[in-house]
Each structure stands twice: as C-alpha cells, then as structure tokens.
C-alpha cells in the first residue's frame, strides 16, 4: 500500500463582533458609502479605528469620504487562490481615498500588472447586493477605464 500523501483541511468558521466603529463602517458600506472617522487633530481614518492610533484618544464623528482615490502601493497576484476576492489576476493595493488621511487595503481589478502604477487613480465598484462587510466593495477599478 503506497502512502505518499493525504489531503488535510483545517477550517475555522469564525464569527467576530466588530464593535461600534467598524460596525458603523460596515453599515455604511451596505448603503453604498465609505465612511471614516475624524480624530481630534482633524485626520480622517479610513478604515476607521476606535481610537486615534497616535494619541490613544477616542475618535470623533463619522465622515463620508470619496469612492475614488490613489493607489499608494500594490502587489500583483498572478494566480488567484479559490478564496481570493477575484477569480482572475488582480492587485492587492492600499488605496488612499479622496478626503481620507490613511489608506484602505483592497483589490484592484486592472487586468494586467502593466496597468498598475503607484499613484494611479482607482474607483470603488460596489456590489448590487450588499450585506454590510468589506466585500460590499467588489473591487477598485482604474479610473481611466470608466
């Protein structure tokens, strides 16, 4: 009897509570908006934190930011895995949205790495059916393709 290899699956079906700040962020995504929070010093954090990462102070009001922004860094995924958000090659990217002071990690559906560039403008494409989580944004797309 040959024993060369066996398939093994490790799976944890986590459900995590998100708290009042991320909860509001996800609630806004469900309504098709991207919201951040304003710190006392006036910076807008997207995605929002419960506390200002620089001072530890509680954050203030929620602020709607733009659906478009600038790619600050990115990595190309040539062979997506089954659980990746897109089933075709894509880029993981940090997107600095208009009106925000921090960047959001998401995916850019650019088709090929030649179309990716640090500093490029991208725009969020929302799903039609949204449930209140980060994948309510299906992806970001290069603005020139619109």
């Amino acid at each position, binding site marked *: *009897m040959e*024993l*060369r*290899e*066996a*398939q*093994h*699956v*490790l*799976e*944890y*079906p*986590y*459900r*995590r*509570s*998100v708290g*009042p700040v*991320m*909860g*509001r962020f*996800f*609630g*806004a995504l*469900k*309504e098709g908006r991207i919201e951040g929070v304003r710190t006392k010093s006036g910076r807008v954090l997207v995605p929002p934190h419960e506390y200002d990462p620089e001072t530890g102070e509680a954050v203030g009001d929620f602020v709607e930011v733009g659906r478009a922004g600038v790619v600050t860094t990115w990595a190309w995924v040539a062979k997506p895995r089954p*659980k990746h958000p897109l089933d075709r090659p894509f880029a993981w990217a940090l997107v600095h949205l208009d009106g925000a002071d921090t960047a959001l990690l998401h995916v850019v559906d650019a088709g090929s790495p030649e179309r990716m560039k640090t500093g490029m403008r991208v725009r969020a494409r929302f799903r039609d059916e949204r449930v*209140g*989580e980060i994948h309510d944004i299906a992806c970001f797309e290069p603005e020139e393709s619109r």
Partner: protein
Amino acid sequence: MTEIVKSITTPIRLEYVYRPGRATARFLRGLAQGRILGQRCPATGKVYVPPRGASPTHGVPTEEEVEVSDKGTVTTFCIVRIPSENLSVKPPYAAAHILLDGADIPFFALIQECPLEEIRMGMRVQAVWVPKEELAPTFESIRYFRPIDEPDAKFESYQEHL
C-alpha cells in the same frame, strides 16, 4: 439611520497536502493491520508513538520498530461540552491522553462506553477498532478507547508522562 453591523464571518480554511514520511507511513500501515507501531530512541530506550523517525530529545534516527499494546492508561483527560462544527462526535464527550503499554509518550484519543463522571486518571482502557474490513491507514481505524476491567494504574507509573 445607518445600521450598526454587529458581527461578520471571517472563515479561515487551509488546504494541506500531508506527506507522512517513512516513519509515520509505517505507523499508518500498521493501523491498517490493527497494530500500533512505535520506534525506540537508541539513546534513551524510550518508545515514541506515533513515530517521527527521529528522537525528539537526542535528534538521532529511531530505527528500531516496536509494536505497542492497544491497551493503556489514561494520564489526563478533558470533558468537552462546547460543540464544534465539522466534528462527528457530539458533546459532551471525553478527550484523553492515553499512555499505551510499551510506549513512553501518551496518545490522544476519545473515550466512550463510559459515563463521563467515571473517567479518571489512571483508568485502564483499550482501543475499539473499526471492523477488520474497514481497517485503513488512518487514525480513524481506532474508533475510540473504552474502559477495561483492570485495577487503576498507580500514579507513579505514569507521573513522568503528564
């Protein structure tokens, strides 16, 4: 009024291809024959089961194969009352470390056919195997362990293995 989302699901799934290597492959083939095979460390004489091919304390190859008994002693145990998805056994159930006779390291298994409140350290148990025609090179060849009619082992006999 914007809804405040309370929770999100973030499932994690890792798909492995597991290659057992020579020592563990021999152990798994043993299970397919209804036998439990370990290996002896040449430096200390300790028998490790399942074997990994090398001594965990001395790093030397463990080439001598040793068949151990399918009877053993419960060293520690845990009554699990919290359900878990994808698990065939329903809580409450008992998970135990069992020091098989002839082995020097406890073996993890479930204990059944025993009221949970009677499970104790030192209790003597024996493996319940699947029917012969269902034996296969997998841990699932041992269904669980059940108590046997033997006096409890003395604490001194397993205190080194807790």
